[in-house]
């Protein structure tokens, strides 16, 4: 603080509080809607901003699915949450594992075509799923991976950013550590396991947060490679509840939205320090 200006400080707080309220408003509306009955939402104009008392029913109906009040059947969100969780963790762990290994190879070994390998990984940055939708779908379908966990996760596991991050980090690790390891008779994999990986633990934690959110929030990819309800992650399943039906049970949709938001939001809030580090590192 350069100078004392109470009026400006007050203004700052007001702007920030207003900002926080506006940012939080959609989620509050979602929460309120998820505690009411579908009928209350459909009939009350405007929507009441006081939480209703249908919370338990709405959430259990969302989680376990089944027949609705108007006879529509709904896939259980519990299953979707499980798929999302498996998907997010597999993608995050997979990305970290294969990036650690390839960064280790690129930094600590000299082998033919090393820079070609490096550039090939780099170029994947320029080929997001969005620009090669149909052919990638074909590959996955040719491998028979539609509607499988492998199809959902493996194609998303390659990671240029994670590889660069670890490469950058390994380059800064003092050479003396390698020499010391050698004198102690440790081979490359021993050095990797007992020295490099523990040293990178902060970067690993940071990347895990970012990649978990990335995996959890995937939408287009599951839309392509899953066709059955029992392999739909929650972020995608929620769309199926809104679209195509003349009658949308908004309370259940909103409960599903809450359930879809809570895990990644918790990861961000509980691991805030690593999250910020991960964001900044991943863009370097």
């Amino acid at each position, binding site marked *: 603080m350069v100078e004392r200006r109470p009026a400006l400080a007050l203004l700052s707080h007001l702007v920030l509080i207003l900002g926080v309220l506006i*940012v939080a408003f959609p989620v509050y509306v979602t929460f309120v809607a998820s505690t009411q009955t579908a009928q209350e939402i459909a009939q009350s104009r405007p929507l009441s901003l006081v939480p209703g008392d249908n919370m338990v029913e709405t959430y259990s109906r969302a989680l376990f699915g089944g027949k609705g009040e108007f006879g529509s059947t709904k896939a259980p969100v519990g299953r979707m949450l499980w798929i999302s969780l498996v998907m997010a963790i597999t993608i995050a762990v997979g990305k970290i594992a294969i990036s650690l290994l390839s960064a280790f190879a690129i930094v600590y070994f000299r082998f033919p075509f090393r820079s070609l390998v490096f550039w090939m990984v780099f170029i994947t940055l320029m080929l997001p799923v969005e620009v090669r*939708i149909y052919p990638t779908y074909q590959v996955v379908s040719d491998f028979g991976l539609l509607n499988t966990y492998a199809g959902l996760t493996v194609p998303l596991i*390659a990671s240029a950013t994670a590889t660069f991050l670890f490469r950058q980090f390994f380059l800064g690790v003092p050479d003396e550590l390698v020499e010391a390891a050698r004198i102690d008779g440790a081979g490359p994999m021993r050095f990797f396991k007992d020295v490099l990986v523990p040293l990178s633990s902060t970067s690993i934690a940071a990347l895990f947060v970012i990649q978990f959110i990335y995996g959890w929030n995937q939408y287009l990819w599951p839309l392509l490679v899953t066709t059955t309800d029992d392999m739909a992650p929650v972020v995608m399943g929620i769309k199926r509840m809104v679209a195509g039906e003349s009658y949308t049970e908004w309370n259940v949709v909103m409960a599903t939205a809450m359930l879809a938001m809570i895990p990644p939001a918790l990861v961000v809030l509980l691991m805030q320090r690593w999250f910020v580090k991960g964001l900044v590192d991943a863009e370097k």
Partner: protein
Amino acid sequence: MAVEKRVRFKSWWLPWVLIAPQMAIVLAFFFWPAGQAVYQSVLQQDAFGTSTVFVGLENFERLVNDASYLESFWTTAFFSVAVAACGLSIALLLAVMADRIVRGAMVYKTLLIWPYAVAPAVAGVLWLFMFAPSVGIVSFTLQQLGLEWNHLLNEKHAMALIVMAAVWKQISYNFLFFLAGLQSIPKSLIEAAAIDGAGPWRRFWTIVFPLLSPVTFFLLVINIVYAFFETFAIVDTATQGGPGKETVILVYKVYYDGFKALDLGGSAAQSVVLMAIVIVLTVIQFRYVERKVQY
């Protein structure tokens, strides 16, 4: 930092084993499909997928002459400029305010960063619900104020809806980077200006904003990339490209033409165009952004 290690391990096979998983995925799911996209973009399939003929650049010619494709280009351009402009200015305002505050800044930061965790698809559904013409609370309020909100009929409303949802989700990211940028500006500069009698407004525009320009430029590129490629889910959940085709952004069109209209050649040609755009954006990001942004 050194680019090469002085001390290395020796093995002719181990490095290949180490890079094998990454290479397998990169080749199978990145390079092969990208090559396929280029290959399919010069082919034309008949409606039943039974015969395929080589048509050269015809698919591209069709694209260039296709009014709906050009329109989609303009839609995307407008959308990404709107998302970047709104997202950056709101986030900058909040970051400057948070930077001024001595006590409680961490609390605000925590309260502002979590939308990053919300999936674009979920963001789309949330905003759709608030603005749904029949049940939405905001659309109701707008109607009370005399604005007949209906994004199912009015293309301006539909565009506004997806811009708001996209900006909302991206604010936390922009905010974090602006705040980090602001905090890295030396306090002595601001103090010197204050002693010379420059007020907060003047100090912001003559010192803070110019020093922040690398961060702003970096975020501009990131936001445009975000609006181009990561907002498919928002469009798909909130408007499905509607009311007519006024919110069909390029990525949505690639998906729609390939999977719904089954025009593989046309979709592949669009993929190739998109790839070119990504390459340009990535080059800009690495050539001009990388070296200037410091944390």
